[in-house]
């Protein structure tokens, strides 16, 4: 979140899960029914409530203080139908899918500092880059 232009000097909050001991980066499990995929596979809807996250306003500084916070969000990807294929044998991954649009609405709370924030409705947000599809990597790449 930024006051003014989206540049590091204006960043006032940065919400994400902690990095796992394994190094897994800002990844958390999604509860059953958290992800809904349309029967034609062209729309993904991800909804989660009260996800434990941290607020690190000075991220990525190593000494950035992490304050416990909660995040509730809904995210919707819709395929544009334009095909995409990325593959790198040296990194053992292959992605086959389509470009997509993606929109997000969210709420965050940082109880210890009495801060909360709610986004405008889903259809007012946009992302400049989005994909949906299928991927194989690692040991599954060669199978």
């Amino acid at each position, binding site marked *: 979140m930024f006051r003014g232009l989206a540049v590091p000097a204006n960043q006032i909050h940065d919400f994400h899960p902690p990095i796992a001991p394994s190094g897994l980066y800002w990844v958390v*499990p999604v509860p059953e029914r958290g992800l809904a995929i349309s029967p034609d596979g062209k729309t993904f809807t991800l909804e989660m409530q009260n996800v434990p996250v941290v607020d690190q306003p000075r991220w990525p500084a190593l000494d950035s203080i992490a304050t416990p916070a909660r995040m509730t969000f809904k995210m919707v*990807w819709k395929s544009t139908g334009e095909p995409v294929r990325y593959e790198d044998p040296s990194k053992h991954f292959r992605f086959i899918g389509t470009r997509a649009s993606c929109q997000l609405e969210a709420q965050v709370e940082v109880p210890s500092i*009495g801060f909360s924030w709610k986004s405008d409705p889903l259809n007012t947000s946009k992302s400049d880059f989005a994909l949906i599809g299928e991927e194989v990597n690692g040991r599954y790449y060669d199978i």
Partner: protein
Amino acid sequence: MLKSSALAWLPLAIRSANRVLGDQQPMTANGGTDPYPIPWLDKNGSHNQPAGANLEPSHIYHFKGRVARCSTFTGMGTDNQGNRIAFGSPTTDYGVMQGEYWGARAAQQATFTHI
């Protein structure tokens, strides 16, 4: 002589170890079921995967399944003081991965999100 003295403590040590381990049940030791990160590091030295063309959408290695990825969000919101605050930047990225991954030496099924 030296050998005999050096080994003289063994029976006591075994009895002691048996007392410590006596309450523990036999178990497997295959590692945890947490997924593996992608091995490559980003410019900050983290296992973070930037989103973009020709970049891998998944954050989990040894994975096969459905993925969705996005970045460069822009949007607005309001805080509890009534202040209008923008969210999103070129590095604001999210992803979701649903399918099979390898953990604890076996195939696992789950859905994960990178937020």
